[in-house]
């Protein structure tokens, strides 16, 4: 039975009430439940509870309290059937799938990829990275794993080149930036007006496995600095890598030293939660084993009569899954089997909220006083409005700019075209003038020619008259001169003198010449 003092819900059931306001609730002590997958009981098999236990506000143990708070805790008189609720929740989660993001920080060659392979029992293909990277960068890969009906989207992010540089001052900054970047992406999605959070691929880092080199002495400065800068942003689980290089006693001392150094320097590593009864004990004991000393290997060696994952040395075989040899099984148990959900929740509820708070405060929002409650939403809206105005202004400005540019270009083009036009005009004028001159010259020549033709015609006329006169005068001597007439050159002599003066105009000349008879024709063929 739920007792009424567990809920602090304020409700006024009076008839004149308006909308009921609901305040925060606390659900009291958790009770571990072993029931899941409750079968749908047949409706006729409900169990009877005593009806008198139906608490009415007037008759209850905490009479004053219920009267004040007016909440009713109900006892049900039958089986309602909502114990299937966790199953509904689980079904939905199965449908949606899970996602888990691991960040592995450690220097090159310390065994990060091998450990991840061993943890998830697969061989994610990884190329060995070189030692000569100029700066640290992060490499992320996403895999989809499926075990029975659970789909897990696993993203593993490795630091490439961590600890390889000579100057390691900037080593941890890319890591911090990456983590912040993922938070920021989520925040942006959350702040959008139209968002789709349920289908958003959550890329925030849920756990950071920090690989500490097995020196056996103490924490290195780089490690300390990196962990210090990461501890408020991500859940850190420190690991001692390549633990098969340390002996048992050294390991114990090393662990103690590491933890004390971490505590001294105020580094907050992830503590396995001890508030739930089912897992409290085991988590508490595991907390004492941190940092886990791990060995990773994908090779299978025959030990006894079965194949186990192990590393084979001349002096013996280090079995990965042997609890005496290393803490690998503890890590797997804690990371995956027991606390995966808690890691995700911590990331969302603590680290992400912290980031969000800082980021929003940076952007200038605050919700200090409760009277300002409505202001909050307006603050965000103001930002949206402001952004919108800004965008509009920007757009206007750009439009203006483009217009100006356009006008400018048009003007230039116009000028060019005008110039061309003028040139053409000039050319045209020039040509026209040339043409005119040419024409005049030709006119001149024609005139001259005409004059000469006229002169020639006159001369021809006079010569004809002269000829006919001389012909009649010398008709007696015609026979004598027949022979001489036949000679073409005789007549021509007379005409050649005049003809040569009109050599220029063939056409007219021919016309005149044809009047002369065959003589001239013969000459000018």
């Amino acid at each position: 039975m739920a007792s009424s003092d567990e809920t602090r819900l304020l409700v006024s059931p009076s008839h004149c009430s308006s909308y009921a306001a609901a305040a925060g609730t606390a659900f009291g002590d958790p009770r571990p439940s072993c029931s899941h997958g409750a079968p749908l009981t047949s409706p006729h098999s409900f169990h009877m509870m005593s009806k008198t236990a139906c608490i009415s506000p007037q008759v209850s143990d905490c009479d004053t309290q219920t009267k004040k708070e007016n909440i009713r805790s109900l006892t049900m008189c039958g089986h309602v059937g909502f114990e299937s609720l966790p199953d509904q929740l689980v079904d939905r989660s199965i449908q949606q799938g899970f996602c888990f993001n691991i960040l592995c920080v450690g220097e090159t060659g310390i065994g990060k990829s091998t450990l991840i392979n061993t943890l998830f029992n697969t061989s994610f293909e990884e190329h060995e990275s070189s030692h000569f990277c100029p700066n640290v960068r992060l490499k992320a890969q996403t895999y989809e794993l499926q075990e029975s009906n659970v789909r897990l989207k696993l993203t593993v992010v490795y630091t490439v080149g961590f600890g390889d540089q000579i100057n390691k001052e900037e080593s941890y900054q890319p890591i911090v930036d990456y983590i912040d970047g993922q938070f920021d992406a989520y925040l942006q999605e959350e702040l959008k007006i139209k968002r789709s959070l349920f289908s958003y691929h959550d890329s925030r880092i849920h756990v950071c496995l920090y690989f500490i080199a097995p020196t056996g002495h103490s924490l290195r400065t780089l490690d300390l600095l990196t962990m210090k800068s990461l501890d408020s942003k991500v859940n850190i689980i420190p690991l001692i890598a390549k633990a098969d290089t340390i002996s048992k006693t050294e390991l114990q001392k090393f662990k103690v030293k590491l933890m004390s150094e971490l505590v001294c320097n105020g580094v907050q590593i992830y503590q396995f939660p001890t508030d739930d009864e089912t897992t409290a004990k085991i988590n508490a004991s595991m907390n004492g084993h941190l940092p886990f000393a791990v060995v990773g290997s994908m090779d299978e060696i025959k030990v006894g009569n079965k194949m186990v994952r192990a590393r084979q040395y001349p002096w013996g075989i280090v079995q990965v899954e042997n609890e005496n040899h290393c803490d690998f099984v503890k890590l797997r148990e804690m990371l995956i089997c027991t606390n995966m959900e808690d890691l995700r929740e911590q990331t969302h509820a603590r680290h992400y909220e912290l980031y969000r708070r800082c980021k929003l405060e940076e952007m200038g929002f605050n919700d200090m006083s409760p009277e300002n409650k409505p202001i909050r939403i307006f603050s965000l809206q103001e930002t949206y409005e402001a952004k919108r105005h800004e965008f509009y202004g920007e757009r206007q400005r750009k439009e203006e700019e483009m217009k100006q540019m356009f006008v400018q270009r048009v003007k230039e083009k116009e000028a060019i075209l005008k110039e061309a036009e003028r040139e053409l005009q000039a050319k045209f004028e020039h040509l026209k003038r040339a043409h005119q001159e040419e024409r005049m010259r030709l006119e001149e020549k024609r005139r001259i020619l005409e004059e000469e033709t006229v002169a020639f015609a006159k001369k021809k006329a006079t010569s004809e008259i002269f000829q006919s006169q001389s012909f009649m005068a010398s008709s007696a001597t015609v026979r004598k001169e027949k022979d001489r007439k036949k000679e073409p050159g005789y007549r021509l002599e007379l005409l050649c003198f005049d003809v040569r003066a009109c050599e220029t105009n063939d056409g007219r000349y021919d016309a005149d010449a044809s009047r002369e008879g065959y003589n001239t024709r013969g000459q000018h063929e």
Partner: protein
Amino acid sequence: MDRRDYVPCHMDTLRQSPSPCSSRPSSPRTPPFEMFGPVGIEAVLDQLKIKAMKTGFEFNIMVVGQSGLGKSTMVNTLFKSKVWKSAMPSLEVPTPQTLELHSVSHVIEEKGLKLKLTVTDTPGFGDQINNDKCWDPVLGYINQQYEQYLQEELLITRQRHIPDTRVHCCVYFVPPTGHWLWAGSPPHSDTAAPPPPPALSCPDSLRPLDIEFLRRLCRTVNVVPVIARADSLTIEEREAFRSRIQQNLKTHCIEVYPQKCFDEDINDSILNGKIREQIPFAVVGADQEHLVNGRCVLGRKTKWGIIEVENIAHCEFLLLRDLLIRSHLQDLKDITHNVHYENYRVIRLNESHQLPRGPGWVNLAPASPVQLTSPGCLKVRRRAQKDSKDDEC
């Protein structure tokens, strides 16, 4: 929880999915791998369950309908307890002149699981002479819950678990008028009635008040209509009435829960299809027990027999209960959170200067008249997409 006793039943291939966000560094696709044995990922389901048991569940339900339809009795029957102090209106209290809303919250526990149940009743709905705009207070209440949640969500320093008072489900009680308007009396045989000739278009079984209310409500909250007091209808009448209502709903484009557009895959479609065939359920509420054949059953005793509430042959109360509690509770909450609440949020953040203000709001300078995005054109749930516009009062 011993993980070592795993039987490796599935060694499924490993598929690599392309990195969805281009801003994150990612490497190109590599060929799929195989897992060589169990890892223990399944244990996350148990972790989820433990977490759920610890935080508990919340469920907010609203019942709407005219007085006298048996709403309070129905709620009592659903949760097998006296949610309301008395189902009968007491004599001192006059029937309310306007529509008011009462909310009552309870914590009920079953097998270690705690459920915080909030029931909101609407006495006075549809009881006035002029019922114009009677949906306004209801819609206002629903929107106010969204608003509360939104404000909590927008806080800089948020609570770890924002208390959820949003109405997850609204059960709408349709009075059993059983109107049957084509010529002739309803058939008495068991064979299914022939459908009315298509030329005779189906007059409404739902009254105008119902239609108006449902139209507005369906866009804001999940609505499950039920035929109240179904013991006043015979089985044939009930079937006919039900199919008429279904046709009416289709004609007026009212999408009740489970909405078709949110069916994710084929299994969902089949399951929800079956439910859709039977919406609205014909229910009878009773909170008294009687002896029938040696068993104690919840039922209504009349002179002509005892109507057993939990007998599927008598009424469909069990279907309603299973839908609301046993199978679709989480789905109701999901749709409220992912769809209705998001729609509200979009509109709220876009058109804030047009919405009615509550007490203490600050008057902002009005935004530019041009709206960047057209609000309400988003109702996205994973793959399914549908456009609709939220109608704010």
